[in-house]
Structures are given as structure tokens and as C-alpha cells.
């Protein structure tokens, strides 16, 4: 399978994980390891930067795991940029998952502030991966602003409802010049496989693994689903047909 390349960095795994919502840090670590993920997102607000033995981070100390700090909690571009700079300094990475959701009820991303922050952060040298609505025009605007990837949502975050935005995801995937990572709403391995079959470059999963009865084996299930979906995509899926091939062709006269 092809390697995934984001901003010059290569990934074997196309499954990214969120680290919240697990019943314990140990459980989170086991799930991350079982998933084979090489990029995990960590909320800056959850990390205690004042100690060098942060509970969450100490469970993510594996050579193959890269941290993707996120700005969850930021309500506007200004707060997000500030948090990003702090994360860069504390976690020693210029990778950033940009999350700006001023609405704490459904955690809907703010397109306007996200675009503004992406522009700024790209100028400041960040590798920006913004969490956004499945909005094809916004994706193009983010590309112009220097985004490293786009992370459109499959359905409202935490809902496990799957790919409700599928029609828009397809347009985004078709048009994008940067990797498309489907984030939020992926509820089951079959959702992840479906996103990969559509041609998404990667998926990010959190709730569906963290809240599963057995997070570790669910992480392994997602690993297989993402690989299967990608392999199917690279193998070029046979087209779906709603009807049988016509027995009396309409254009046979052209051969006469």
C-alpha cells in the first residue's frame, strides 16, 4: 500500500487516534498500540505542561508515535493561535490539529475563525490540520491559506453516526490537493473502511474506540478496516450498477 505523506512526513498507518474519553491512560496506550497508529491527537488543555511527568503523555512515549496537539477549547482564532504556540513550545512539535468550536453543545467548527487561524499559523511555520465541516469551498480556501491537510467531519463529533456528509466528502476528495482526513462521527470499522474506499487519505477515530466494550480489540478492528478500505481503493473498486447491461444496445448501429 502507498505511504501517506503529509507535509513531507510519511506514515505507514492511515488511522489516527484521539486520546480522550478512555477509562484510563493505560487503556488508551494499549488501544493506541493495537491500532498501529503513528499520529495521535492530544488536547493541550488535558496536558499538564508544568510537570514533565504528565499522566497522559507518559503513556504515549513510543518511538513510532507522533503527537498532534489540538486546540480543543479555543473559541476563536486568537485563542487557538495562542494555544498553538504554547503547544509547539511545550510538546516540541510544529504539527497542530486546529479545532475552533465556539459552540460547546455540538462542538461545531467555526469556518471563519478556522480559516483565519490557518492563515496565521501557516505563516508562523505550523503544519496545520484543521477540523472543519465537510465544506468543499472551505477546503479550497484552506489550501490557499497553506493548510497541510483538511479534516472534514463525517457527522457531528462523538455521535458515532458514520458518514452523513458522504456527498460532500466525495467532492472534497475529488478536488483536494492536500490529504483529506475524515474526522469525527466515525462510529464503526465499516464507516472507516467506507471512508477509505471513497479515497480519503486517512481517518481519525476516538469515541468509537475509547467507549467500546474492549477498546484494544476495537482499535485492532479499526486498523484492519482502514487497511482493507485503502487496499480496496488502491485496487480500484468495480463500479456499482443498478441494472443489468442492456441486451439491445442503443449504439450498435455505429458498428454496422
Amino acid at each position, binding site marked *: 500500500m502507498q505511504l501517506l505523506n503529509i507535509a513531507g512526513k510519511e506514515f505507514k498507518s492511515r488511522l489516527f487516534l484521539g486520546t*480522550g*474519553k*478512555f*477509562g*484510563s*491512560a493505560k487503556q488508551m496506550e494499549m488501544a493506541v498500540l493495537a491500532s498501529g497508529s503513528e499520529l495521535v491527537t492530544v*488536547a*493541550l*488543555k*488535558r*496536558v*499538564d*505542561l508544568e510537570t514533565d511527568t504528565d*499522566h497522559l503523555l507518559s503513556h504515549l512515549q513510543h518511538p513510532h508515535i507522533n503527537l498532534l496537539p489540538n486546540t480543543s*477549547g*479555543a*473559541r476563536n482564532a486568537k*485563542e487557538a493561535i*495562542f*494555544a498553538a504556540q*504554547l503547544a509547539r513550545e511545550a510538546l516540541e512539535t510544529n504539527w497542530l490539529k486546529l479545532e475552533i468550536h*465556539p*459552540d*460547546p*453543545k*455540538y462542538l461545531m467548527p467555526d469556518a471563519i475563525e478556522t480559516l483565519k487561524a490557518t492563515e496565521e499559523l501557516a505563516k508562523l511555520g505550523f503544519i496545520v490540520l484543521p477540523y472543519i465541516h465537510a465544506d468543499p469551498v472551505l477546503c479550497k480556501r484552506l489550501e490557499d491559506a497553506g493548510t497541510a491537510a483538511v479534516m472534514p467531519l463525517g457527522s457531528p463529533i*462523538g*455521535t*458515532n453516526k458514520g458518514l452523513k456528509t458522504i456527498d460532500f466528502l466525495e467532492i472534497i476528495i475529488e478536488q483536494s490537493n492536500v490529504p483529506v482526513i475524515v474526522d469525527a462521527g466515525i462510529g464503526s470499522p465499516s464507516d472507516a473502511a467506507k471512508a477509505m474506499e471513497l479515497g480519503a487519505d486517512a481517518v481519525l477515530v476516538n*469515541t468509537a474506540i*475509547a*467507549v467500546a466494550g474492549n477498546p484494544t480489540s476495537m482499535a485492532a478492528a479499526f486498523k484492519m478496516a482502514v487497511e482493507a478500505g485503502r487496499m480496496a481503493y488502491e485496487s480500484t473498486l468495480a463500479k456499482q450498477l443498478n441494472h443489468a447491461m442492456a441486451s439491445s444496445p442503443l449504439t450498435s448501429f455505429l458498428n454496422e
Partner: protein
Amino acid sequence: MNSFKNIFDTYKWEDIKSSIYSKTSKDVEKAIASNKRNLEDFKALISPAAVPYVEQMAQLSNALTQKRFGKTIQMYAPMYLSNECNNICTYCGFSFDNKIKRKTLTDSEILKEVEVIKNNGFNHILLVTGEANQTVHVDYFKKAIELIKSQFANISIEVQPLETDDYKTLHNAGVYSVLVYQETYHQEVYKTYHPKGKKSNFYYRMETPDRIGIAGIHKIGLGVLLGLEDWRTDSFFNTLHLDYLQKKYWQTKFSVSFPRMRPAEGIIEPNVIVSDKDLVQLICAYRLFNEDVELSISTRESEKFRNNIIPLGVTSMSAGSKTNPGGYAVEPNSLEQFEISDERSAQEISKLISESGYEPVWKDWDKTLA
């Protein structure tokens, strides 16, 4: 001011009460089966008709809470800054007419208390006072917050109702959330419990969350004091209030607390007894009605109750709490606002949470985000 009062005044306590008490098992089953529940469903879920359905509600509440909040419990500690109070609240240990020694912490005392709270592991703190506007005012709060800000990721306050500009000042000073409980939404009963002091103004208190919302504070905490009046009717009004606020202040988070009346110096017996089963029903009803509201349980509750409530819908817990100013270090024997019931240490509660399959979360905010 365009506030909750406009909505509240269109409701009558007795009508709501009889509507709740006339809900049937059919209403409850409809509410349980629904995936988008409204206020009528909430009434059914808190009604006596829902009592046989508590287990079913608990299962749903467990799943909904995990979906939204994961298997986590946020840890916080209260710090009482003062027990000075000019209000008479007939149920409260700090009531003006209660002849106790009054105390307001000084800067150095605050720092001594903070040291103990930090050593207990806390990064989220709740500052609590009575209402004594001459000595414990916005400037006092501002100074206290500046004093402790560097040591906490998240600061909440539970103090007297303030003006919008005061809330803006405190928001800028670093306050993340403000808790203000209406105590009871029964106007006449409210007056008998609060005969004297600024708090006797029912509407001023009820419009406080609007002022907090306008000021842009991140989170507003609501609640009724369980035991003053019919808890079902009071909880309906609290939910009506929550629903209104959530739609109006769409950038604000909300939490609900469930203070159940506990013995305190010189106070009356609860008017209404709220049983453990009642409280579980209420917590689950809140969760089924509102998937994203934070639900908080304090050390007022017993060990047994707290041991078992973790997976049922709550999202935050205090532990090792002292409810008297100076209680952690300065003056451990000064008078408490109420007797705490669960006296286990923060570490013991943290262990309890882990053993229940949940992660105790000590930090879920950052002062840089304020």
C-alpha cells in the same frame, strides 16, 4: 432586561406540579424511546410514574454520558474564602442570624489553603463565599484570583450574584465558570426561606445567569437546593431555565449540581426528603434530556451513594472537601457551611473512580485559553 423572567412568568407552579404528577407510564415509555427529548419528556422522566423505569433510565444515561464525556470524571475542590454573610437563609450554617465566628481569608491564608489543595492533586478549584458586599466584593475576588491563578488550570466561583460588568471583570481576571443556584423556583416559599438580605430578591437571583451569560463567562452552573420544595417541580423549572440559557448563550457551557440538604449549625429539617432513588432518577432524567450538560456530585453525598453514582451520568466530583474558610490548613475547626458526608481523601476518591473503570481527570482546561 430581556431575561428568563419573561418565560418564567408564563408558568404557574401548581400547573406544572399537577402536570408532572399526572404523567403515566405511557408518557414515560414514550420519553425513554424518543431520541430527541423535550420538556414534556423531562416531566415524564422525573414523575412518580417513571420510578419503575429507573434502571432502564440508568442504562441509557450511562451510554449517553460515555458517548459524550467518555469514561472520565472531572475532579475539583471547593475552597471557602469567607463565611461572612448578610443574608438570612433559614437552611444555611452561614446565615446572618447564626451566632458563629466570622472569617474571611487573608492573602497569606489563601496561599496556605492552596498549598494543601494542590498537594491533594487538584488543578480545578471552586471559590466559595457567602454574601458580604462590604468586605467580600469584586476587588476581593479579583485579588484572590490573581493570587492563585498561576497554580490552577481552571477557576470557578460560587459567590453572591453580581452585576454584568463585575462578571466581565472576573472573566478577564481568569474565572472560567460561575455557579449560582436558585435554591427554589417557588416564589412564595423562596421568600420564607430568604426573609432578609439581598438574596431575598427572587428575580434578581433568577436573572443572574443571564448576566453571567452576557458577560461571556465560559460556563454557568445551575441547581436547586433539594429539600426545600417539591424536587420534581423545582427541577422542571431548573431545566426550563437551562434550556432557555443554552439556546440564548450558545457559546456557554452548563453544569447542574444536586445539593441535597445536609445537617448544618442551627438549621431546619428539610421540608422534603429526597431519597437516593429520587436523586438517581433525577440525574438520569437530566442526562436523557440533555446529553451535553455537565452533572456534578459533591461530598454532601454519602460514601455509598458516591461509590455507585459514577457510571450513572455524573461528570464531575469534588473530594476531600472542607466547607469552612481555612478548613484545609488555617483553621480546620471553624464552622462548616454544611457537614460533608463523604470524608474520604482526594486520593481515595481517585482510586475509587479508577476502580469503577473511569479515569479521574485533574486537568481539562488551560489558563492560556481564558
